[in-house]
């Protein structure tokens, strides 16, 4: 019940500024029930799916990287080099791209080069989203409470290192060129030009790697995103516009290129190990 007021006017001045204008409230009481989420949809499904997908790939990639065999098929007139082993830089390579590493390297020749594509993907803006959500549950899904007490994001080591993504991108371009060369080389059948099912697998692989590399956010920035006034940088604007067409599909390209690189390697393994015969079109 509200009664009549008697009035005393209290002038608020700058001396008690907390009463001036709108105040910020930190740490106030929040509304709603104290539950993790009120979402009714199957919010965990995308995260579980991408978590399993990534895990399967890591398992496969580990097996492949340490396999150190059946990664090159040169025996049947083919010239197929698994993308996990390209460029092959150690002296113990079945097929030597260039023997840069010398003879001291005794482990699988996949290991020293895989650092680069692995680093590129680990610092990729899409994969970051995926592993933060699927593995670190930070958050488990949008609007679902995360289990951690504190959170510092990418402000401290090691996660602050994700800022070096663009350096991995520079290498990624080099790798994309090499994998393109491998796709061209896949047309080489002994001394003649030909094409097998494997050639097709290599072409798709190179194309997907390019799409993934060019749709990268760092690429978008380097091509033209850093410009403030596009009308004064017409060429960079042109590149930026093209990359901006690809960029929204970065996640799709990330997955397709990931799956396909595994497919390509496995295909080479099957052919090189003699498990299947690579059909030749011409």
């Amino acid at each position, binding site marked *: *019940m*509200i*009664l*009549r*007021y*008697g*009035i*005393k*006017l*209290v*002038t*608020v*001045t700058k001396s008690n500024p907390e*009463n*001036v*204008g*709108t105040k910020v409230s930190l740490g106030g009481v929040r509304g709603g029930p104290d539950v993790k989420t009120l979402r009714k949809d199957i919010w965990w499904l995308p995260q579980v799916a991408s978590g399993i997908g990534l895990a399967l790939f890591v398992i496969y990639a580990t097996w492949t990287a340490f396999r150190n065999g059946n990664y090159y098929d040169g025996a049947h007139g083919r010239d197929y080099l698994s993308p996990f082993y390209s460029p092959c830089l150690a002296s113990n390579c079945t097929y030597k791209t260039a023997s840069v590493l010398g003879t001291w390297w005794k482990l699988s020749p996949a290991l020293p080069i895989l650092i680069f594509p692995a680093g590129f993907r680990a610092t990729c803006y899409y994969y970051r989203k995926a592993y933060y959500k699927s593995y670190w549950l930070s958050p488990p899904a949008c609007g679902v409470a995360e289990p951690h007490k504190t959170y510092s994001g990418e402000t401290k080591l090691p996660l602050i290192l994700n800022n070096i993504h663009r350096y991995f991108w520079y290498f990624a371009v080099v790798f994309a060129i090499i994998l393109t060369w491998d796709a061209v080389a896949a047309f080489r059948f002994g001394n003649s030009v030909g094409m097998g099912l494997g050639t097709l697998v290599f072409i798709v692989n190179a194309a997907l790697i390019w799409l993934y590399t060019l749709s990268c956010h760092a690429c978008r920035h380097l091509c033209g995103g850093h410009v403030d006034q596009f*009308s004064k940088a017409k060429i960079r604007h042109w590149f930026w516009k093209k990359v901006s067409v690809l960029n929204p599909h970065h996640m799709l390209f990330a997955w397709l290129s990931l799956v396909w690189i595994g497919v390509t390697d496995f295909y080479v393994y099957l052919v090189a190990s003699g498990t299947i015969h690579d059909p030749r079109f011409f």
Partner: protein
Amino acid sequence: MVNASIETHEFDVVIIGAGGAGLRAAIESIDSGAKTAIVCKSLLGKAHTVMAEGGIAAALRNVWKEDSWQVHFRDTMRGGKMLNNWRMAQLHAQEAPDRVNELEEWGALFDRTKDGLILQRDFGGHKYARLAHVGDRTGLELIRTLQQKAVTTGAEVFMEVKIVELLHDENGAVSGALGFYRNNGSFVLFKAKSFILAAGGIGKSWKFTSNSWESTGDGHALALWAGADLIDMEFVQFHPTGMVWPLSVKGLLVTEGVRGDGGILKNSEGKRFMFEYIPQMFAAETADSEAEGDRWYEDKANNRRPPELLPRDEVARSINAEVKAGRGSPHGGVFLDIASRRSPEYIRRRLPSMYHQFKELADVDITVTPMEVGPTCHYAMGGVRVDPDTAKATVEGLYAAGEVAGGMHGSNRLGGNSLSDLVVFGRRAGLAAAQSALEKGSSKLSESLVEDALNRALKPLNNPEGENPYTIQHDLQETMQALVGIIRTESELVEAVEKLEEFKERVKGVGAKGGVKFNASWHTALDLNSMLTVSEACAKAALMRKESRGGHTRDDYPKADPEFGKTNHVVRLQGNDITVTPEPLPVMPDELASLFEGAAQPTGITESKEVK
């Protein structure tokens, strides 16, 4: 009696309302060195200005070198059927370009011409493409730019504060405003040397309106209660194209930009009916065949504009007539068709938020299907009578700018002139209010006045078993829609005035359940006071104007009357009564009057047969 202390703030200038006019006034006032506060009923940046879609009219001459302030002035006066305050229209046309350029300097990103200048689009009643715009969300751009500028400049903002009354000092000047924080119900008193009303419109008194809950005419009512004059209150603009379906969004605006970009109006027979309704006043500059109308979009120099782009009052009345004649669309509107005339890409680029609005709210794809539209209550031409140069009201210490001020738009406002009105007169009000405040000494406010006002504001809460305010609000809206709507007549207006007396009694018994904390029923109960005041002002002024002109159409007096064309209706509060007095319109000086030589005069409601 409970002794309570009231939070009190002293400023040089207090601005009530944080739409375009209020924010622009604040920037100017601070620049002039006055300690300034903005008080707004909602959160900052939510004001009705965000709803403006089409653009801001200014003779920038970026698209048409032929344009000039004189042409803009002429268009504005003719659109207002010559009832505008000529000086306001002149200042507006002269200063609008500077105000638009200034927005760009503060960070606004307007659409561009090929030469890198601000692009301008065509709109109803404007001879040349004149509206600077940002797609179809120009109002949002304007308010955001001004909001950011005002915040950077250092304005103090009191958000979600409803002002209930203005208070006078011992000399009769407005020197205080009592309000309360909506979130906790605690009262707050602002003492200042100048108050600027920038509180927007009155549309919430009608059932089908493009206005939000805020447009309850608070500014109009505060001014009237404080002893200021209102003028032209009978003129209410019904925007021709509001959504009519689904019911829950009936009244929601469809921008005139749809027509400016090629959209046409059709009836249920598929006929492009606007050619039947071209009034004599605009016959010389309007296409008389569909072919010419269509050619105009490509070649504006050699063709006349299509009749879809006539001033809003003409188009609204024509739609009304078509529906009445039984040629309406299934949900009681007509069809606005751009789908068959422009490519889907063009529509999505030029009208993104319209596309969005229909897709999400009505499940209609406007690139495929025509829209169903009908008139919706949109804008109050009438408002506080102000001095054109200083925006000063007829009471000391009070200023008004934007929709709450009257005179600028005469009997009908042209699209695009409202945003420019806000910044032109917002600036002038801020400047004059600050200058006057800095010259003045402080004055005293009686505590008993504050106490009375406060207790009046608490009345609904002390009467929890009283009538539900939403019911009264609903009935009031029904009454105004039915009896003081787009077409009016003597008997209905008389009935409206009688009914409003009943509403006054009902409002005395209104009650609000619950406490003081963000209690919507209490807020609504208090809003009813302003809504009733402006409704009565509108109905009484409408009853007195026995002619048809602009936003006031009388079924019983379908013609424009030259005598009424020289008259403003001034609304005052005398005792407890709202009175209407005819007063002569200020006379235009000869050099401006010569701009209209040989032009046709307003004729009132257009009967198609008469014109042809």
